């Protein structure tokens, strides 16, 4: 007898859990199927060496949708922050680091002109980021309008842009598609400052500072808020897994069932409609609605299969740019490392190795040719400074995003892993002499590992490049931007949909709203 559910959600990532929780809260019976042994998808905390735990992929919380947080009462379900409002420490091998607190340089050598220019630029970018943030909770505008109702989201977006005021609107339209290199060159002179700010435009992307629309990517990164403060970074207590644990608790208390070790092999299709799923175990589960938190390529080309789609649509999905370049480095350290020029109280902040624009561009160049950076850029956190639960007493974990490590490395990652790890440790050693001697265990997750371990096609943890041609009504691809897929009964709810990647939950919430409206 086949098990039957009104709604099956594939994947207990943060968006899948948000969607499941909201659907369950609205009275739907929801079953969440998770391939892994615990809920959370890629947003989990896991032990990578005995006694050392770390956020497996994303390690900073800055985009979590405040509406989701409130609606699902995540605080009541156990979500706490270990730290919030992290500063950015821009490391330099040659000079003393800069310490940035929002728009203010609180330590380091920066001229007065740059200080005021930074304040002005930051204020403006934050205003633009707020505009983008307002779009997160909305189903994106439609390109073809069947009725005036369809035109409303587009009008709302136009109104938001108009409301910036004449001067800011003009500036927004001017810079929204620009590369962040050019914007920073016309605003600032400090190379260290430029490097630190440009880093936000390329983090998690296959783009360099001179690549188009990296400014938009930087705005996207600023578009969240934590505890009512916009554009700040936080560390959840217990790592990123704490967020999905709270979401899982919220989903369960709303009545959803979460089943782990239940990987989906394929979607069932009958008479042009998705009617359920088959598990790797061979069991089938019938469902009136299947919502996929998996990435668009996995969902549409692997689980569903191109043969159930139109040729042109399948082609667009096939060409969705989703090859990751971000690797994740986890170090188990015997003691707190010392970074040159960084005061002990700043070790718990976000440390960035992106000393200037050209350094980042040079790190990016090899990625174009499917090679890794000889001198990568890094975003480093030492979460155990704030959260003693993550490492044995007196010891620490280092969690770093390392770029660029192209998924499709020409030599393959079996051959590339060791040399890339060495190159990364060399860069670290340059900024933190002696750190190599503290390493008790190192884990490097390349995009190939991320693809394999978290079942994300291309290992791109945003499920698709964050680029203007893959944003809003173009995300993931035209014809699928409204969560309902062309095959009836199938919905997407993950980072591959609007608004996109980051531990946010908005895509899951938007998808739930579309499903509840019967769309």
């Amino acid at each position, binding site marked *: 007898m086949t098990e039957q559910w009104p709604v099956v959600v594939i994947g207990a990532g943060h968006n899948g859990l948000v969607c499941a929780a909201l659907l369950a809260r609205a009275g739907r019976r929801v079953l969440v199927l998770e391939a892994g042994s615990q809920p959370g998808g890629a947003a989990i905390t896991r032990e990578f060496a005995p006694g050392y735990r770390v956020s497996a992929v994303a390690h900073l919380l800055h985009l979590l949708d405040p509406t989701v947080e409130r609606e699902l009462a995540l605080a009541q379900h156990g979500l706490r922050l270990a730290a919030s409002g992290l500063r950015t420490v821009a490391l330099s091998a040659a000079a003393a680091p800069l310490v940035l607190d929002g728009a203010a340089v609180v330590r380091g050598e920066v001229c007065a002109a740059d200080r005021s220019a930074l304040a002005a630029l930051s204020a403006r970018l934050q205003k633009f980021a707020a505009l983008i943030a307002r779009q997160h909770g909305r189903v994106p505008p439609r390109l073809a309008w069947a009725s005036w109702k369809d035109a409303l989201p587009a009008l709302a977006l136009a109104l938001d842009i108009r409301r910036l005021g004449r001067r800011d609107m003009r500036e927004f339209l001017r810079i929204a598609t620009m590369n962040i290199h050019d914007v920073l060159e016309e605003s600032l002179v400090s190379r260290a400052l430029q490097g630190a700010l440009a880093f936000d435009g390329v983090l998690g992307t296959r783009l360099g500072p001179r690549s188009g629309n990296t400014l938009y990517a930087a705005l996207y990164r600023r578009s969240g808020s934590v505890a009512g403060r916009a554009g700040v970074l936080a560390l959840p207590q217990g790592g990123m897994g704490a967020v999905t644990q709270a979401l899982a608790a919220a989903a369960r208390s709303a009545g959803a069932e979460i089943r782990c070790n239940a990987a989906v092999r394929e979607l069932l*299709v009958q008479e*042009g409609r998705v009617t359920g799923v088959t598990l790797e175990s061979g069991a089938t589960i019938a469902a009136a609605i299947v919502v996929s938190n998996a990435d668009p390529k996995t969902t549409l*080309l692997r689980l569903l*299969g*191109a*043969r*159930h*789609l*139109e*040729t*042109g*649509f*399948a*082609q667009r999905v*096939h060409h969705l740019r989703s090859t990751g370049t971000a690797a994740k480095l986890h170090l188990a350290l015997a003691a707190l490392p010392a970074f040159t020029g960084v005061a002990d109280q700043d070790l718990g902040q976000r440390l960035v190795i992106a000393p200037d624009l050209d350094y980042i561009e040079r790190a990016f160049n090899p990625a174009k040719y499917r090679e890794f950076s000889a001198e990568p850029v890094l975003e480093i956190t030492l979460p155990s400074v704030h959260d003693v639960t993550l490492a044995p007493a007196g010891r620490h974990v280092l969690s770093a995003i390392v770029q660029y490590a192209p998924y499709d490395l020409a030599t393959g990652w079996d051959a590339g892993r060791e040399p890339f790890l060495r190159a990364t440790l060399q860069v670290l050693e340059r900024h933190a002499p002696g750190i190599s001697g503290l390493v008790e265990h190192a884990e490097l997750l390349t995009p190939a590992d991320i693809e394999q371990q978290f079942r994300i096609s291309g290992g791109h943890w945003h499920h698709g490049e964050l680029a203007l041609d893959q944003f809003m009504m173009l995300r993931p691809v035209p*014809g699928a931007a409204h969560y309902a897929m*062309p095959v009836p009964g199938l919905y997407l709810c993950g980072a591959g949909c609007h608004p996109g990647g980051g531990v946010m939950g908005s895509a899951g919430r938007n998808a739930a709203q579309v499903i509840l409206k019967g769309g």
Partner: protein
Amino acid sequence: MLPRDHFHQAVYGTAFHPRTAAANQLNAWHRWRDHTVADAYFDVGMEYNAIRNACAVFDLSPMTKHLITGPDALAYMNRLVTRDVARIKPGRVGYCVWCDDAGQVIDDGTIFHLSENVFRLCSQERQLDWLHRSSIGFDVRIAEETEELAALAVQGPTSCAALRKLGLAGLESLGPFAIRTYPFAGGTLTVSRTGFTGDLGYELWIEPDQALGLWDRLFAAGRDFGIRAIGTFALEMSRIEAGYIQAGIDFLPADRAVRPDRTRSPFELDLGWLVDFNKPHFTGRAALLAEQRSGSRYRLVRLDVEGNKPAKDAYLYDGRRRNVGVVTSAVWSPAAKASIALGTVEMPYGGPEDELFAEIYYQKELKWSRCMARCSVVPGAFYDPARRRLTPAPDR
């Protein structure tokens, strides 16, 4: 494969060119993709008469041919075209159309189901790009083999007799849309009972290096059966009589259209019978289902036009005032003894009982005149001889 110095020449003769060139008394040619084919050899009327009364031979080698093979070939073909390919058994041929996502026709053609999971797709237009795009998720190999296969259409009431004389024993038992192979000059001659004339007829498929031998033996065998080489002009007359449509003339291939209202769906080309919603998913299915619910925008009409002026390019009117469409193909039909036309009209015009008017401009000694000719809608082919379907095929 083209030779490395191919750029010295833009257009080629077909494998039959030495013979067709020798036969072409008018030296009248036009370009069909990368090859030249004859407009006519001597007299279009006589060539037309060979199609309807004797045995006509048309060089169709430039037809685009693709070979599709692999474990998923059947599934792939079924996703590509609108009809159910599973019903075209090995050894059979099926007419088909394929559509883009919006259910608009990209091209029409014939599927040759050569053997289990081996298909040949013949089409007017180059399709390799679309065929490759459609192959995502299918285990298939797709190769264009236009250059690797020469082809002749042998059409007309004595075509079967002429081909039997050539040595194709038992050919009369080959039913319409069936395929058979014969050993020929150490190689293989593939014969299909197919054609573009709406008459009894066959198409012969052979390796290019055996093309000239085939031509010579065919014409020797056909001497007593009125065999005659024909050009495109005569073929065009017969295909309009048969009511067949042609890409680029009666509809615009959807991948070439810029303006959204220029394309047509299968329903709008009177090819609804080729659309099967009960088979597995195919490209354009959702759009065509929606069209079936909400109605089509256009209708293909076959028109019997009053008078004797060919209605080429004529505007079509509802009554005498409202322009509702246009003629896409027109000819004086010797077989039907009528001026006939294919056209496209806006819905709801052109229904079975509807009367339309064609605005025909014609010239007499350089002076242009205009008439409004009454048209009646004809349900099917203008000329449809029983011998087209008879098996065994008539042998004289």
